[in-house]
């Protein structure tokens, strides 16, 4: 096995079963500090399930994860302080204002009041709106909701950030703005693990992993993945990777 000293996430033989069904089938890999790690895969491959286990929100059937050297199995609460998580259908309170949402999530993480205030004005400035008070979150355009979701996940200033399909349903411009924000965070040495079904976004990652049917079938840089599948772009490479893996499974 390759040695990576600066691994901030170390996943070892992670398995999750729901009844007889194996959703995550013995996956192991490491994520380096400061990298943008793209987690790709077919629908139902197990990405969300894996992320929820890494974040300590779902108990593995077997295996463990070390986050900054801390075992998620032994100290899930300690790990939760270090990570920010934005779920696939993220859980903002849509009938509250963006401001109230930030207060709420700030409270959960025990963030100081003046720190929350700072973060609020930063978000208002980024989104170019005078106030986050007078609107209902439900009425925000999708791109704004995602940015608010991200701001809530970042309130306690975590080192590691998990974003599960942050740009699904966001238009081409909004997606670019979101990615510029991801780079800003990455520039602050934060580690980011992000899932997406947009292959041009996968191109922006340092490393990508492709999952199919509970397993990680590839893990490499975008360029090496394209080379491996002799594809000009990641969309074609992805399709080939999944098709080849399905064929292999059918042959067995």
């Amino acid at each position, binding site marked *: 096995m390759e040695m990576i000293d600066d691994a901030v996430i170390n996943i070892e033989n992670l398995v999750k079963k729901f009844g007889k069904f194996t959703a995550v089938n013995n996956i192991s890999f490491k994520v380096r500090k400061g990298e943008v790690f793209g987690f790709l895969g077919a629908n139902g491959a197990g990405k969300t399930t894996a992320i929820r286990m890494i974040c300590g929100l779902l108990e593995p059937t077997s295996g463990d994860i070390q986050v900054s050297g801390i075992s998620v199995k032994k100290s899930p609460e300690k790990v939760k302080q270090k990570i920010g998580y934005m779920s696939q259908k993220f859980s903002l309170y849509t009938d509250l204002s963006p401001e109230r949402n930030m207060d709420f999530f700030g409270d959960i993480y025990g963030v100081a009041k003046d720190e929350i205030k700072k973060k609020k004005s930063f978000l208002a400035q980024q989104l170019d709106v005078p106030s986050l008070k007078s609107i209902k979150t439900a009425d925000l355009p999708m791109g704004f909701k995602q940015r608010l979701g991200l701001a809530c996940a970042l309130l306690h200033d975590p080192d590691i950030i998990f974003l599960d399909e942050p740009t699904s349903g966001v238009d081409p411009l909004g997606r670019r703005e979101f990615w510029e924000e991801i780079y800003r965070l990455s520039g602050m040495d934060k580690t980011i693990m992000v899932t997406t079904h947009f292959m041009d976004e996968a191109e*922006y990652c340092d490393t990508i992993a492709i999952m199919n049917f509970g397993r990680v079938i590839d893990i490499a840089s975008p360029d090496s993945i394209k080379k491996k599948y002799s594809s000009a772009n990641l969309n074609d490479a992805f399709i080939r990777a999944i098709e080849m893996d399905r064929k292999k499974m059918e042959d067995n």
Partner: protein
Amino acid sequence: MNSLIKAEGIEKKFGTVNALRGISLEVSEGSITGLIGPDGAGKSTMMKIALTLLKRDGGSISVLSVNSDNDKTFIRQNVGYMPEIFSLYTDLTVEENLNFYFTIHKMDKQDYEKKRERLYRFSRLEAFTNTKAGSLSGGMKQKLALSCALMHDPKLLILDEPTTGVDPLSRQEFWGMLHELKEEGVGILVSTPYMEEALKCDFVYMMNKGKIIGEGIPENLSEEFEGSLYEFEIPGRKPQEFLSELKQIFRGDSVFMSGKKVHLALRGAEELSDIRTKTTSLDPELLVRKKVPELEDIFIIRVLAEGSDGND
């Protein structure tokens, strides 16, 4: 070709917000018509008006050749619709969900078997027939909802961002299915944030702030661009590393990421050599090329030029 939707000068207000400002569009039999535009452009609103789910404030529209003011029930029964925010029966299994849609549309049993098989081939949900819809992954739910929308045999399909969260291979299979339906004569109106999907449409309307800002065969839309587009790349470096420098240099113009490259759109024509001179301070490895804009470029350039609104 018969027209299935013919809308002329549609207006819609929500309070003080002008959601639609004179939209005219047409959807024909046996063709795929795409609607693209940023959040809040009015795509979903237009679709809901065609479905008679929302009242328009002005303009005229006929759907399936009937007047949509008098024949609401006929339209709702004969148009297949997949809303942006859909609902499934989460405590029913995959199979029960499909079967439910089959039952309400009073379809022929044999027809059902055939459809069901075709839909499972696309969705790959056959191994999950007895799984409760509530415990499917996000993309699997989306695919099940899509399958339900395709369960009946409508002449007109209206699909609002149907492939959100659907993986690239399934998206390809889904579009293959849309093409089969088109060959059978079905007319399809579909919105999408994926420009590679817009390219698969026969005709595209580009919307922004409640207006149509461009329309045509997707390949031709980019020909209307009068400015010039340049592409920057530094081998071995990521676009985000030199994006902000380029934004500084070309302040006031559109500079945006595109895969591994950064694109610059200028309103007028400018010589490649001038662009090179302006960017000498960057990495000596910087590559600059003039480029024919693609649909995504056109989309971004147009929206950046006009600004976008925020409600849909």
